[in-house]
């Protein structure tokens, strides 16, 4: 099980204090989730993440709510792990790639992602899109804790189970994820637009959807302002 490996990796060498409460919680979680758990991560003193298998996504909601007591539904959303083909940093040499330079395909994008040494977040993963949700245990003073749950969304189908039958509040969150990322939530009672006009084409939150404001007028930070000091000056007092 990859579980143990990632836990040890999560606690960096200089951090001697282990996070016993979270370790214990994670043990309970992995026991309840069993086979469904793919990977997990603890940030010492901060938070717990788990990644579950795609097929188990719907069942996991039931387990965390009814067996682990995480009854409070925080949010549900999707991450697009493809690096933006348009350049997203202010310090990039080319801020804009013209629209006819088609967004790079999956192969190049995953190369780029691995260059940064940070691929698919703290709990890893294989697919371009990942669903993630946050649930918490509330109403019990002194025992408040939250959990972030992630799952891969298959590239071929772009579909994952709905959570609406367990957490009714997932309704709007899934509608938003559907229109923004184009992810199907199997079993959702009515996937329709929540923010965008009904005739809107495309999924704006996908990384390959251009931010049109930047197409019309390039980011001025590159040309207008005097160059920012380099990173090596970084240790001094922050600017006020």
């Amino acid at each position, binding site marked *: 099980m990859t579980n143990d490996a990632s836990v040890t990796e999560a606690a960096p060498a200089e951090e001697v204090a282990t996070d016993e409460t979270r370790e214990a919680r994670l043990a309970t979680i992995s026991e309840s989730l069993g086979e469904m758990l793919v990977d997990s991560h603890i940030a010492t003193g901060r938070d717990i993440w788990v990644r579950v298998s795609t097929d188990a996504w719907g069942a996991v909601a039931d387990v965390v709510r009814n067996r682990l007591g995480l009854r409070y*539904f925080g949010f549900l*959303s999707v991450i697009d792990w493809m690096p933006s083909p348009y350049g997203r940093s202010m310090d990039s040499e080319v801020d804009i790639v013209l629209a006819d330079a088609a967004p790079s395909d999956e192969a190049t994008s995953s190369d780029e992602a691995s260059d*940064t040494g940070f691929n698919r977040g703290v709990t890893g993963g294989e697919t371009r899109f990942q669903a*993630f949700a*946050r649930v918490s245990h509330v109403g019990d003073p002194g025992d*408040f804790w939250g959990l972030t749950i992630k799952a891969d969304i298959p590239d071929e189908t772009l579909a994952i189970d709905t959570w609406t039958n367990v957490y*009714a509040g997932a309704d709007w*969150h899934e509608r938003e994820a559907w229109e923004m990322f184009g992810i199907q939530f199997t079993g959702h009672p009515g996937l329709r637009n929540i923010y965008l006009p009904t005739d809107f084409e495309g999924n704006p939150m996908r990384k390959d959807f251009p931010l049109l404001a930047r197409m019309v007028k390039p980011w001025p930070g590159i040309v207008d302002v005097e160059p920012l000091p380099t990173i090596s000056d970084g240790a001094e007092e*922050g600017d006020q």
Partner: protein
Amino acid sequence: MTSVTDRQKLQYIAAQAADARVNVELETEGMTLNLGPQHPATHGTLRIIAQLDGEQVVHAEPVAGYMHRGYEKLTEVRTYPQITTLVNRIDWLGSFANEVPFILAAEQLMEVEAPERAMWIRTILFELSRISNLILFLGDMGVQLGAVTPVFFAFRDREFVLDQIEAATGGRFHPNFDRIGGLKDDLPKGWLESTKGSMDKVREFCDQIEDLLLGSEIFQARTRGIGIVPADVAMQYGLSGANARASGIDWDIRRDNCIGLAYPELDWKVWKHTDGDSFARFWVRIQEVREAAKMVDQLCDGLPAGPVMAKVPRIIKVPAGEAYVATENPLGEMGYYIVSEGELTPFRVKIRSASFSNMSITPWLLRGVYVPDIITILGSLYFILGDIDR
């Protein structure tokens, strides 16, 4: 065998008659009522399409998105210091409170901690935002019920608080004062005294509102037992803040999971109400304003000396990682889930805004209520459109 009293006989006859009437009643034709997008109860531009059967709502469908600004997309092309300017505009009545969780999440990833004084000043400004936000709610709730006076009091007395925010930060509504590692500036001279003075005004306002609204028979009739949210449903829909506490959920992020703010040092109380109706939501908020005023007093008295800015690099690059930090904002749980790949800009920011979840309960909650109650329920759930349409 017990004898049947006249009263019981009458009850029986009445029940029979009621049954008979239901059975012969003709089917009413459904009607669609369009509420908004420009209704004062909507604090922005929210539209509600209500299918009515007689006076009762059969199905209500809120339509959001008239104000969607795409902040989650925009944050991907902004540097971290620039993002505070954007997120200021999410809940525009309590702007400073929007910056804090974002800054805290970034600080968590950078493993930077603000100096103690900065933490305390953040907490003061956070509570002032809460007060200025909720004061307007308290007055506005009167308007929803047809009482016009309270809202004028609210606008008048909110100014005292906004003046303090402006004096400290330079902005009445959009301070943009929080920085990674601390604050932009220290407080001006004499600010603490004048802030404590304005807290007296706030308390006075709370008393006035209590006299004007809380005890009013009309107010009680319009809000008690209306729009009841049971605790379990509230949790399923992710109701947070005063809405959750009005349903009896004993949960306040300020107490239970306080990150980077001075709440553990203070003496205060989490108010909750077990009724879960519109009245409870109003009542909890009025107590929260008082509690906030109490906290500001304590914070002003105990403010530690020292710097307000930690040592941070001139160019903010946040190390790769993921963090979720939420705070107890005036409207409820507001959190930012930041995914950083170690660049100048975040890779993905998920904004968990309170009103979005608070409003997602409306289709469930409005089913079966009468038309005038739609307004009081919406008013008491208290949402800001900027917080729904991020």
